[in-house]
């Protein structure tokens, strides 16, 4: 089963119980001291599991170049777990001296595209392993957007050599909230450059918006999209993210089983 579960302290026991059947895990770099990572996480890496440092704070879509200290921290984390690559996002998280703690969409203009490419190249030059970039769930779109998202993402990957962390839940959320055509998006990005896949749960709010919370069960549209992605790139590992409302170990294992079922084509999706 080419399935994984994101490492969180609350999920450490679930991962330990299932370590023989899990192919991959990842941890949020900003949540830990890269020089003193949790022992269970290091044990997984030493035991041969692929462990990916996942950054959320580089802000590669900012007007400022990526921060050297954050890059060094990501590099140290990669070395600590012998990671084959590290991952980050095509997004910005701060501006005007304020932190948002949330991944925000970059304006899809040609000018911003060039800046993202420069930032990503600078990050790659300072990292000891390849960089993988994730598509995010948008919470708004810019009025000045002039490039389709698939083209924006594809150009960044092509011009920098970075690979793609394909988040199907984010893509499904963008299709639901902004009317994107997810299938066309998949047609237009280089799926041969996918390093691994993310999936997570969310919920439809009273505001009419689908919220990619990582705190709810997997939604049917994300599972349907996952089935499509799995059919197109069957070898790509699929990693379940959960960041709250962890429930019981059995509930998480049921989510992992649902993912495995989708990838085997044994679970019907709407």
């Amino acid at each position, binding site marked *: 089963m080419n399935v994984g579960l994101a490492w969180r302290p609350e999920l450490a026991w679930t991962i330990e119980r299932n370590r023989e059947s899990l192919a991959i895990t990842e941890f949020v770099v900003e949540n830990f001291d890269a020089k003193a990572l949790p022992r269970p996480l290091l044990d997984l890496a030493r035991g041969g599991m692929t462990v990916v440092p996942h950054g959320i704070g580089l802000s590669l879509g900012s007007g400022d170049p990526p921060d050297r200290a954050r890059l060094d921290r990501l590099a140290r984390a990669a070395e600590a777990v012998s990671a084959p690559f590290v991952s980050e996002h095509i997004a910005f998280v701060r*501006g005007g001296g304020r932190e948002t703690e949330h991944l925000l969409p970059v304006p899809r203009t040609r000018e911003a595209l060039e800046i993202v490419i420069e930032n990503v190249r600078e990050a790659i030059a300072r990292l000891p392993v390849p960089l993988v970039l994730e598509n995010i769930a948008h919470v708004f779109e810019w009025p000045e957007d002039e490039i389709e998202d698939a083209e924006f993402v594809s150009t960044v990957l092509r011009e920098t050599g970075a690979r793609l962390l394909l988040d199907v839940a984010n893509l499904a959320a963008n299709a639901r909230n902004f009317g994107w055509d997810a299938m066309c998006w998949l047609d237009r990005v280089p799926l041969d450059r996918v390093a691994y896949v993310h999936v997570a749960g969310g919920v439809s709010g009273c505001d009419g918006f689908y919220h990619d919370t990582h705190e709810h069960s997997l939604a049917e549209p994300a599972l349907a999209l996952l089935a499509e992605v799995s059919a197109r790139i069957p070898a790509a590992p699929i990693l379940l993210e959960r960041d709250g409302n962890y429930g019981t170990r059995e509930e998480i294992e049921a989510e992992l089983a649902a993912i495995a079922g989708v990838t085997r084509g044994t679970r019907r999706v709407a």
Partner: protein
Amino acid sequence: MSLDARKRLAAREGAVVAALTEGGPPPAGFEPKALEIAARVVAKKIERVGRKRSRSFSLFPAKR
């Protein structure tokens, strides 16, 4: 890319962040309602991250 382009992007993103985190006016071109949902999402995230950082979590809690 020129320094001016970076400054333009930083200013535009800074204005959005101010609107999302401090209730500032929507930046030029945005519909007034376009950022309301985003502001709620960001507020929740800031609160959640603050809560997580304010507690220490141990895999091996001390016996009580």
